[in-house]
């Protein structure tokens, strides 16, 4: 049983070709997994196989290849629906990624259900992609965007959330796992609180799908969005899950081929779910790569990986604390393997630049969450974010790079 085996990064590291390289004559230590993950060979092979042997357009051809490709594509949809425990596979819609999924909901749901004076509720720790679409929707509709406060520990203020729910927002859109702070939000409770008032909830799961067990029916969220590329899958593919009862009420987002049933010059009858929201030729190769990545990830048992990443995180925090030079930005109790920090009084850009020259790939800046960074009153942070293939030795190299940067900049 996979649930009983112990997971270690060493079991998978060799599967990732991009991790085998050197940068600046040093082994690459890739700690920018919250931006995007590296891809295992099995995913790269799957995409190559598609283009070498299977490539053709889906859903419309009667020929042999087209039928096989359609089966593979729809098989991926069914696999993902099953993995995430969606009630129906037609609730899984393929998009280009999290950003497109949120834009689809903001545009389609927004146009239908949000009017002047209505409220939309998001948190203060949202990525720009779960902030700007709602902000722009509110600006165009004359609606009001409410923001849930974040505590100094980097957690959602649930009392403030409760107060803002009393405004009866038309939708709540929150991140499952903060890309800046690593906070795992209490989304089950937040969804329950919203549902008491019949308010739908969209979960931005861009960061969580690669780390947490997802059970959509148990979560009971109304929309759930993520990107493949942050979960070891190719870029350019993502998922929008929406409950059937919502998706059926929403108008199409884009128009064109695939999403139509019956077209006349005067009018068009749109196709049924999920095709109604998948205009144009989808990125089939990437969808198959996504299936392959999720199968690979789950073959080790996601709980085992989470357990490993959690131990690695606490090792990293302990080592960082022991340098006496680290200022942590956010210390959430429920913490995934993302750490935002500053080295002493140095600017994050300076320390990050030197760490890069030591082969340590971290991210510096506002991480596409400028308002959140402003809350902490810092010019930006350095972010180390871990994946299934990161090792304890790499944490040691990170610590060495921090100390070197500190010495050079002091």
């Amino acid at each position, binding site marked *: 049983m996979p649930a009983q085996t112990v997971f270690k990064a060493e079991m998978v590291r060799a599967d990732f070709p991009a991790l085998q390289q050197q940068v*600046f004559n040093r082994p690459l230590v890739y700690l920018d997994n919250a931006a995007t993950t590296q891809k295992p060979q099995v995913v790269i092979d799957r995409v190559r196989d598609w283009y070498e042997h299977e490539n053709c357009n889906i859903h419309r051809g009667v020929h042999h290849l087209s039928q096989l490709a359609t089966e593979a594509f729809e098989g991926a949809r069914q696999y993902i629906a099953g993995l995430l425990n969606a009630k129906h596979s037609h609730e899984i819609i393929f998009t280009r990624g999290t950003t497109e999924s949120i834009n689809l909901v903001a545009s389609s749901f927004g146009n239908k259900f949000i009017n002047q004076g209505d409220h939309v509720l998001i948190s203060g720790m949202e990525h720009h992609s779960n902030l700007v679409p709602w902000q722009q929707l509110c600006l165009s509709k004359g609606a009001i965007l409410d923001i849930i406060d974040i505590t100094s520990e980097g957690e959602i203020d649930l009392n403030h959330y409760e107060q803002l729910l009393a405004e009866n927002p038309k939708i709540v859109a929150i991140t499952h796992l903060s890309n800046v702070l690593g906070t795992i939000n209490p989304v089950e409770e937040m969804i329950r609180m919203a549902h008491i008032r019949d308010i739908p909830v969209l979960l931005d799961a861009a960061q969580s799908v690669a780390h947490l067990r997802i059970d959509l029916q148990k979560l009971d969220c109304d929309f759930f969005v993520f990107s493949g590329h942050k979960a070891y899958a190719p870029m350019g593919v993502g998922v929008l899950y929406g409950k059937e009862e919502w998706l059926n009420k929403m108008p199409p987002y884009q128009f064109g081929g695939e999403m139509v049933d019956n077209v006349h010059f005067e009018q068009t009858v749109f196709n049924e779910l999920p095709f109604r929201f998948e205009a144009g030729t989808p990125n089939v190769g990437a969808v198959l790569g996504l299936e392959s990545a999720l199968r690979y990830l789950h073959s080790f048992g996601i709980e085992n990986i989470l357990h490993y990443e959690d131990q690695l995180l606490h090792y990293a925090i302990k080592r960082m604390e022991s340098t006496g030079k680290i200022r942590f930005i956010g210390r959430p109790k429920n913490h995934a393997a993302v750490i935002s920090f500053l080295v002493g009084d*140095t*600017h*994050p*850009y*300076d320390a990050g*630049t*030197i760490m890069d*020259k*030591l082969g340590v790939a971290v991210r*510096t*800046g506002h991480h596409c969450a400028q308002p959140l960074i402003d809350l902490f009153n810092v*010019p*930006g942070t350095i972010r180390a974010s871990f994946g299934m293939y990161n090792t304890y030795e790499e944490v040691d190299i990170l610590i060495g790079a921090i100390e*070197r940067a500190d010495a*050079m*900049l002091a």
Partner: protein
Amino acid sequence: MTIQETEQKIVDEFSAFDDWLDKYNLLIEMGKDLPLIDARYKTNNHLISGCQSRVWLHAELADDGKVYFTADSDAVITKGIVNLLIRVFSGRTPDEVLTADMAFIDKIGLREHLSPTRSNGLISMVKQIKLYAQVYKLKMNN
């Protein structure tokens, strides 16, 4: 020293080092010699956008018909990079500033900072420097 000579001198200084960290050490040292902007100019008006670190830049046209730059940044590596630009461009006529190319940045191995995605905003700094030169050139011709 002409612009070309100053650029060559900078290239020589950097070519003494093979290791990237040594090159950045040199940049950090250069940042400490940056001719600092007068506190009264350290305002949002003098802030260059497009930088992950904040950079303030000021230019003055002196009686000798040359432009003199002062600057500051909250990041020391950025200060070093600004100082490189100031060594090359400060004390030049507007025409000299406008016709200079930036090939030396590539030669000292800081090419990555020229890419538009790089957030230290070297490109924005050069644009701003050239914009000052353009404005002073127009002013001198009037």
